Structure formats: structure tokens, C-alpha cells
């Protein structure tokens, strides 16, 4: 394998893992409510910028990261409580439009707090690149991949082994039946926003040392995360991770071998192709389940 190719793959997998985490958030909220939360990218932005401020305020780095992610979760819960819950009798389309409004609001609020400057976080551990078969890996890339892997494992344990996780799956499967089983589907929705914000927040702090963070950083990340979710089959959280890796790698290869001018177009082309050719994505539920 050529060193160039390897280098592109490393870059693609790293950023793709973050798209994946953002995509998982889309899928989890979609499962709980059929809503596409277009404020998903803003979670990434809040965690990154929040952590830069906490760090600047003199906190130890690890504490700043934890608090940055925690603040993001609180924003996610507040978003559900203040914007979604009061309108939950409305149509799904209305709720989606509310999330678009919320994303614009969050960007505006962030600009008041942080201004329009680009900021960055230092790498979690050392900046000394690691050589690997002619390519180099930033240590932060390993943090991104490790953090993503741990998040995905914990998430699958949550779904497989906890009562709340099963309640979430039941709600995704049939919200009316979930209610008949005594499941508080509103609490499930609240929890889904918390988890989506948590994952977005984790992606935000993991990626900030690699790609700068700024108030609009969530726009592209959100759209690419959405693409990851669609590609993986909307509503399939683990499909979204694979989708994210595919988007990230395709993008990196396009930037490397064609031109970085086309980099952002890749995700949009993929969204269109997936929606036209296989609207259920790679791992979406099959039609015609016996009822």
C-alpha cells in the first residue's frame, strides 16, 4: 500500500469516527421520536468551545474535558425540555423545523459567548507523530479511534443489558406498545437527547485538537453525521458508525486524489445516492417484517 493511501485512510478513519458518533446521535433521537435533530452538530461545537474556555479558566485538562461534555449533555436535555417537549403533540415535520431553529439559536448564542474566532485544544497526549509504514499518525487520532470504540461498546451494552436500553429499543420499535408496557416514552425521548448530546460532545472534544473548533463547526459535522446515519440506515446506531467511517474515508480519498475542493461535496452526493438507490441504507430494517 502506498504511503499516501495509508495517510489518507488514517485521516479518513479518524474524522469518520467522529461523523459516526454524530450519526449515532441522529439515529437514537430518530428512534425515540422519528425526529431528525438538526441541532446535532451544535453539540460537537459546544463541547469543543466549552472545553477551550474551561481550560483557559485554568482547570486541569481532564476536568475541562469532562465538564465540557457534561455541559453539552445539559444543553441536550434543555433542548428537549424547552423546545421539543412543549411541542410534542405537533407533527414530526414541525419538530424537525424546531431543531433547525434550535441549531441556529445555539450558533447565535455561541457567537455571543465565544465570538467568531477559531480556537483549538491541545492534543490529549503529546504531539509527536507516530510513524506507521511510511505514514504518520497523530496520537490524537488514536484517542479519537479509542474513544469512539469505547463509546460504541458502552452503547451496545446499554442496549443489550439495561432496562432503560431495552425500553428505548421497544419505543423505537412501537411507541404505542411501549406505552402499553408501562414505558414512559417521554422519558425515553429525554434520555435519547442526553445520549445524543453525550456522543456529540465526545466527538467534539476528541476532534477539536485535530481540526479547529469555532461556532459554525457543527454545520458541516452535523450534515456529515446525518449522512453517516442515512448511509448506515437511519435508526440503526451501529450502522451509523460504519456509515461515518465510509463517509470519512471517501472524503479523504477524494481530497487526496482529486481535489480538496470536492471534499465537502462528497457527503452531499452520498446522501443523494443513498436516498435514491437504497433509501434504507446499508443496514436499515428490511421491509415486510411479519406483523
Amino acid at each position, binding site marked *: 500500500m502506498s504511503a499516501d493511501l495509508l495517510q489518507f485512510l488514517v485521516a479518513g478513519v479518524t474524522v469518520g469516527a467522529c461523523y459516526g458518533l454524530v450519526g449515532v446521535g441522529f439515529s437514537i433521537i430518530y428512534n425515540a421520536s422519528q425526529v431528525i435533530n438538526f441541532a446535532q452538530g451544535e453539540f460537537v461545537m459546544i463541547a469543543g468551545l466549552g472545553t477551550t474556555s474551561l481550560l483557559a479558566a485554568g482547570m486541569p485538562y481532564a476536568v475541562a474535558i469532562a465538564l465540557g461534555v457534561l455541559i453539552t449533555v445539559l444543553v441536550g436535555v434543555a433542548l428537549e425540555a424547552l423546545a421539543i417537549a412543549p411541542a410534542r403533540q405537533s407533527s414530526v415535520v414541525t419538530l424537525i423545523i424546531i431543531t433547525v431553529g434550535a441549531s441556529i439559536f445555539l450558533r447565535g448564542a455561541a457567537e455571543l459567548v465565544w465570538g467568531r474566532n477559531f480556537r483549538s485544544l491541545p492534543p490529549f497526549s503529546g504531539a509527536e507523530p507516530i510513524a506507521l509504514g511510511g505514514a504518520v499518525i497523530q496520537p490524537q487520532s488514536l484517542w479519537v479511534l479509542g474513544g469512539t470504540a469505547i463509546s460504541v461498546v458502552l452503547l451496545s451494552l446499554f442496549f443489550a443489558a439495561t432496562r432503560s436500553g*431495552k425500553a428505548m429499543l421497544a419505543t423505537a420499535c412501537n411507541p404505542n406498545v411501549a*406505552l402499553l408496557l408501562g414505558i*414512559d416514552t417521554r422519558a425515553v425521548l429525554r434520555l435519547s437527547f442526553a445520549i445524543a448530546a453525550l456522543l456529540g460532545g465526545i466527538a467534539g472534544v476528541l476532534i477539536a485538537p485535530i481540526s479547529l473548533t469555532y461556532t459554525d463547526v457543527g454545520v458541516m459535522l452535523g450534515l456529515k453525521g446525518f449522512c453517516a446515519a442515512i448511509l448506515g440506515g437511519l435508526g440503526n446506531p451501529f450502522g451509523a458508525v460504519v456509515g461515518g467511517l465510509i463517509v470519512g474515508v471517501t472524503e479523504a480519498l477524494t481530497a487526496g486524489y482529486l481535489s480538496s475542493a470536492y471534499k465537502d461535496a462528497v457527503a452531499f452526493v452520498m446522501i443523494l445516492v443513498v436516498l435514491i438507490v437504497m433509501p434504507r441504507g446499508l443496514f436499515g430494517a428490511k421491509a415486510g417484517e411479519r406483523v
Partner: protein
Amino acid sequence: MWSPPTSAREAAIAEPLLNVAELSSGYGPVRALWDVSVRIEEGELVTLVGGNGAGKTTLLRTLSGLLPASAGTIRFAGEDITRLPAHLRARRGIVQVPEGRQVLAPMTVEDNLRLGGYARPQGEIGAALAEMYALFNDLRLRRRDIAGHLSGGQQQMLAIARGLMARPRVLLLDEPSMGLSPILVDEVFATVERLRASGTTIFLVEQNAYRALSIADRGYVLEAGRIILEGPAASLMVNDRVKEAYLGL
């Protein structure tokens, strides 16, 4: 010794477990139920018969809270639950087994059953599961299988067992025999009789009026959203109108 005033005590004694009074409901502006009154005593097997689109499912959905009542009251175990959210009604023991089974198709049989016991203390789930497997041998044999892969009859048994996992105080069964072969229909009715014999209070909605009235204590006949007849099951069986419209006699 203190004793409550006679009227209150009598009310407590006289009040049935489920007491539905002049209930109306529907879908948005479209009304589907008018002034429906139904009483179900503890331990009774009561059936509701009616043709296609009579409003049977609408009544059950209103009782379980999936649909809001537009007028009237629902009292359960002496409490007004007309405005109580659906999941809290389920937790109080009003358990609906929905029409068309509606098992959680991508999940395993055992996960379906465990979720049936969602509202119960988690320590009780193991024993309840064992009880269901003793009652429904097919489910025991297929407990690791995906619910969506079961046959129609097995899915119906799973839906009923999932409802029983909640330890219902009243079980609302919506056309459990629908779409099943005659042998499976027999099995479903035998199961319902067995549950009733074990003391479960049951509200059985059926299009198969003959079978339902044969095993019920009392019955109601619903037509176009209104209760048009009620009484002991045996007397409904010989009622001319019932015979003509529902028993094909």
C-alpha cells in the same frame, strides 16, 4: 372501632373494578364512540362483540390511554383515571393486548416477555418468566428466537403472555383469535378460559361472538360506536338481534 360512613362503604363495595361511564372518544374531530358505559367486576370475564368498525378497538385504546376521552369518565379500582397517561395506567394494572398482536418483531421472545414485566420490580421477572414458560410451552422452546419469526399463533400467545407478565388487574384482549386457523382459535379461547379460571379479570373484544359469549359471564354489543345491548352472556346468545347480526342464525 372506626368505620367509614355507610354510603362511602357501600360505594366502595358496589363500585366495580373498572367503571366506564358515558365515555366518548374518537380520532381528532371524528367521533367513534358515543356515551359508552361498561362495568367490569373483579374476576369477571366480560366480552364486547361488534362488527367491523364498530369502535371496539377505539374503546380499548381509550381505556388504556392511547386515545384521550372526549367526554365521560373511566374509574379503575375506585380512582378516576380518565386523564392518567397511558404508561401509568399500564403500571396500575390495565393491560391491553393490542389487535394484530404487535409483538416487538426484531427482539427475541424472551426480551418481549421481559419488557412485558417492565413495570414490575425487576426481582420478580425471573419467576414470572418461568410461569409464562410453564403456561406456554411453545414460547419456552423458542425463547431465544426473534419474535418476528414466530408463526401467527405463536405471536398471539406471545402477545398474551407479554400482557400477563405485567400481572394485570384487568386484561384487555383485542380480537385475539383474529386471522388464526380454527385449531389455533381453539387454543386461544382455551387460554382465555384458563386465565379466567385462575382469577384474571378479562375484557375480551371479539368478532367471533359465538365463541366469546360461550365463555363469558356477561357481554356488551357495540354498534356504530354505541352500546346497544348488554346482559348475561347466556341471555345475549338467545337474543334475536344478536342471533341475527352476530351469530348468523
